[in-house]
C-alpha cells in the first residue's frame, strides 16, 4: 500500500426525510483494494455518488492528490481520474464496443468521427488488459461479463487513478469473476486506488486489503482484511451473526412422490435434451455458469418460451404447456431472476400484485371482492413477514427483498405446488436473503416443491437437497447434497467448455 490518494472527511448528505450520510469518512491509498461494505441502503452508493459529483454534499471535505476538490458532475471526476464502474451497467446497447469506450470523447477527422482509429485504440487497450473482445462488436451481443470488462477498459482509458467498482460481481460467473480479479490485481500493481463495493463475503477476503463498513448512513469502522474474519465484518454490518453453512443431508422424505418430471426437453440452443425429476418437498438446486441455459429451461417448462420437443409430467400425468397460462393451471409458479421486468407490476399495490394469478378466487359475480382480496393479502404479508405499511402500498415503494416476497405470495395465493425460484436473492441484502432462505425451507417442509436456480455456490450448497448442473444448454450432472462439493459442481459446470 502506498500513500493516501483520496480522503473523504465527515461527509454529510440528507435527502427529504432521509439522512443518507451522517458524517462519513473514507480514504483510499495508492495500490490498495479497499472494500466498502454494508447492507442495501447503508449509504455506500450514495457516498460514491457524492464523490463523483452526482450528488452534492451538504458538508464535509474531499481531498484528492493532496488538494481539496469538489466535482460537479461525473465528467469532472473522470477528467481528474476518478471513475466509477456502475452496478447497473451503463452500456449503450446499440453502439459498438469501441464507440462505447470512447463515448463523449470521440476521435475526429474533420466533421466525421474516426471510427477506425477508435477501434485501433480500443484493441490496444484490450491487449494491455489481456481481454479478448472485438471492438467492432455491438454491445448488446456481449455477455454481461464482457460488458463489464469493457467498462473497466473504459475506466482505464480515462487514465483513472481511482476506480470504483460498484457490485461488479453481481452478474458475473465464477470464471468471469476470476478474470475480473486478475485485472484488479494488475491494476493494484500499477499503483491505482481501488474501491470495491460488494455483498459477497468470500470475494472480500480474496481480493481486498482493507474493509470499511457502513450501516444506516454512518461509518462503522475500517479493518485490515487479513486480520479479520468473515464474522467480524458481518457483525459490523448487521450486528448479528448469519448462519451460512452448507446443508448436511437431504430433507426430503425417502420415497416422496415425483411431482414434476421433465424428459428430453428441447427449446432452442440453450435447452438441449434436458431431463430431470422433482420430488415433493424437495429443493432442487440448478447450478451452472451464467448462460448455462438454466433460466431458459425454467422458462420453457413454464411456457414462457416455446418448447420444441420433450415431455413434461406433473404428478405423473403428461401435460402440454404452451403458455404460462397452461403452466399455472398445472400448479407451476415462476419467480423470475429479473423481478422488476418479469415479476411485479410496480405501479400496482401489494394486494393487486398478490392476487394477480388467482383473481378468479376473489370475484363476486362480475366484480372484484376487494375486501376478500385485502384479507388474503394481509394474511400473506403476515406469514411471509413482508415489510409494507399497508397492502394498499404500491409495490414500487418496497425494497427488493419485500418485492420478492410479494411475488412469492402471488404464487402461494394461487396454490402453486411447484415453484421455480430463479436467482431468488439477487440484489437482496444479507438480512433479507436469510429470510428468503428460511421461507423456502418452510415451504419445502409444507410439501411445496422448489426448483432453485442460483449462481452463488454457497447458496446452492446451503439450500439444495439435490443439485442439477447445466452447461451450455445441456444437463452435465446431478448430485445429492451429501456428495456435493464446490469442486465437483464446478467441474460439471465447465465440462462442455473443457
Amino acid at each position, binding site marked *: 500500500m502506498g500513500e493516501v490518494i483520496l480522503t473523504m472527511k465527515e461527509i454529510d448528505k440528507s435527502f427529504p426525510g432521509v439522512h443518507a450520510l451522517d458524517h462519513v469518512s473514507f480514504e483510499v491509498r495508492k495500490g490498495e483494494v479497499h472494500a466498502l461494505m454494508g447492507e442495501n441502503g447503508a449509504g455506500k452508493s450514495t457516498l460514491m455518488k457524492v464523490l463523483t459529483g452526482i450528488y452534492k454534499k451538504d458538508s464535509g471535505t474531499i481531498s484528492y492528490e493532496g488538494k481539496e476538490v469538489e466535482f460537479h458532475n461525473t465528467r469532472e471526476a473522470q477528467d481528474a481520474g476518478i471513475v466509477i464502474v456502475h452496478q447497473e451497467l451503463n452500456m449503450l446497447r446499440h453502439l459498438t464496443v469501441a464507440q462505447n469506450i470512447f463515448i463523449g470523447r470521440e476521435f475526429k477527422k474533420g466533421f466525421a468521427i474516426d471510427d477506425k482509429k477508435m477501434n485501433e485504440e480500443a484493441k490496444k487497450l484490450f491487449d494491455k488488459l489481456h481481454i479478448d473482445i472485438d471492438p467492432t462488436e455491438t454491445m448488446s451481443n456481449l455477455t454481461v461479463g464482457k460488458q463489464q470488462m469493457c467498462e473497466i477498459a473504459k475506466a482505464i482509458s480515462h487514465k483513472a487513478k481511482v476506480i470504483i467498482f460498484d457490485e461488479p460481481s453481481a452478474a458475473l460467473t465464477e470464471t468471469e469473476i476470476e478474470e475480473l480479479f486478475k485485472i484488479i490485481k494488475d491494476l493494484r500493481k500499477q499503483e491505482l486506488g481501488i474501491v470495491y463495493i460488494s455483498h459477497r463475503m468470500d470475494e472480500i477476503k480474496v481480493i481486498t486489503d482493507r474493509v470499511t463498513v457502513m450501516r444506516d448512513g454512518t461509518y462503522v469502522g475500517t479493518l485490515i482484511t487479513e486480520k479479520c474474519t468473515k464474522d467480524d465484518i458481518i457483525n459490523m454490518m448487521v450486528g448479528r451473526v448469519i448462519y451460512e453453512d452448507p446443508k448436511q443431508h437431504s430433507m426430503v422424505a425417502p420415497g416422496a412422490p415425483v411431482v414434476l418430471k421433465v424428459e428430453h426437453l428441447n427449446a432452442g440452443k440453450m435447452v438441449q435434451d434436458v431431463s430431470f425429476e422433482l420430488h415433493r418437498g424437495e429443493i432442487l438446486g440448478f447450478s451452472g455458469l451464467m448462460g448455462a441455459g438454466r433460466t431458459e429451461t425454467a422458462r420453457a417448462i413454464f411456457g414462457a418460451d416455446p418448447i420444441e420437443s420433450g415431455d413434461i409430467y406433473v404428478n405423473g400425468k403428461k401435460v402440454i404447456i404452451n403458455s404460462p*397460462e397452461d403452466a399455472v393451471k398445472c400448479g407451476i409458479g*415462476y419467480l423470475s431472476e429479473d423481478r422488476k421486468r418479469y415479476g411485479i407490476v410496480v*405501479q400496482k399495490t401489494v394486494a393487486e400484485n398478490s392476487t394477480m*394469478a388467482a*383473481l378468479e378466487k376473489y370475484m363476486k359475480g362480475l366484480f372484484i371482492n376487494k375486501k376478500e382480496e385485502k384479507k388474503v393479502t394481509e394474511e400473506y404479508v403476515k406469514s411471509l413477514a413482508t415489510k409494507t405499511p399497508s397492502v394498499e402500498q404500491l409495490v414500487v415503494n418496497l425494497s427488493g427483498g419485500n418485492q420478492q416476497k410479494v411475488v412469492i405470495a402471488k404464487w402461494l395465493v394461487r396454490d402453486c405446488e411447484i415453484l421455480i425460484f430463479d436467482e431468488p436473492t439477487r440484489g437482496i441484502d444479507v438480512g433479507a436473503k436469510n429470510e428468503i432462505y428460511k421461507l423456502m425451507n418452510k415451504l419445502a417442509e409444507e410439501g411445496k416443491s422448489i426448483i432453485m436456480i442460483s449462481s452463488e455456490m454457497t447458496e446452492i450448497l446451503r439450500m439444495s437437497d439435490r443439485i442439477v448442473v447445466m452447461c451450455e444448454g445441456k444437463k452435465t450432472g446431478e448430485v445429492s447434497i451429501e456428495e456435493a462439493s464446490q469442486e465437483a459442481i464446478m467441474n460439471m459446470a465447465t465440462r462442455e467448455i473443457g
Partner: protein
Amino acid sequence: MEKIKQNPIVKKLGFNRIILCCVLLLMYLLFSLVGKNFAGLPRILSALNYAYFLGFLSLGVTFVIATGGIDFSIGPVMFCSALISGYCLNSYGVPVALSLGISILVGALFGTFNGYLVAYWSVPPFIVSMASMNIAKGVASVFTKTQSVSWPQSTSEQGWFRNLVKIGNFPVGFVIFLAFAIVCSVILNKTKAGRYILSLGSNKEAVRLSGINIKKWEMLAYIICGILVGIAAIFFVAAYTTVQPGYGDQYNNEAIAGCVMGGTSMAGGLASIGGTVIGVFIIALLQEGILALHFTKDYQLIITGIIVIVAVYADVVARRRKN
C-alpha cells in the same frame, strides 16, 4: 398544501382532479365575464353537444392508453360509423334504431380489428391505428360514394334519436354520458378486465408470466374502445346534421388530450375515468368559449395545446418533487 393533500376526502377524489375541476370552473367564470351571453343556457348546451361525442371518444381511448397502446383511428372510425349507418338509413330505408345499432357495430368491428392485430400479431398500436384510420376513411368514402350524409332533423318523423342529446332544454345526453362514464369507471376499477388491462399496461410480461391470457384482455380494451367510438358517432349525428367522408382525424388529438389532461398516463397502467370526463369538459368549454369570444377554431387549438402542455408539465414537476 401537504395538509390539504392528506385530507381523506381530497385523497379519495384525487388532488389533481380537484385542481382540474377548479380550472373548469374558473374557465367558465372567465368566459362568462368576458364573452357575450356566455352564462346563458344555449352556450352551455352547445358546449355539451361537443362534449358528448368527444367524451365517448375519450372514454374509449382511455382504455387503449391504459394498456400502453394508442389509437389514432378513433376520429375517422367515428365518422365512418356515422356515414355508413346514415347511408343505410337514407338510401336503404333501414329503421333509425337499427342504423344506430349498425353504427355501434362498425365501431366494434374496427375495435376488434385493431385489437386483434395489436394483441395477436404484435403489430405496434401506432401502425395498426394508422392503417385502420386509412381503412375507415376509405371504406366510408366507397360506401357513401364520397357523398356527405345528412341525418334527419328533430322535427321529422325519424328525428326521435335527437332526444338522446336533449329533450326541450333538458340535457339528456349529459345524463347518458355520465352513466356511461360511471360504467367505464366500474369496469376499469372493479372488474377483472379492468384490473388486467391496467396491469398489462404497466408490465405486460409480468402479467403474462402470472399465467394470464394477456392477448385476450389487450384485445378487449380495443373492443371496448371501438364500441364507445360507435356510440360517439351516434351522439355526433344526434347533435349535428351532416357528416363528410374523408375527415375525422381532427378529433383524435382532442380526445387524447382530454384523456391525458385527466391524468391517464401515456405509458400505460394509470388511468382515471373521472379525470377524462373533466378533461373533456375543459376542452369542450374552451371550444365554445373561444367561439363566444368571436375567435376562430384555430385559437382554440393553440390554447388547448398550451393548456395540455401546462397540465402535463405540472404533473411532471409534481412527480419529480415526490421522488
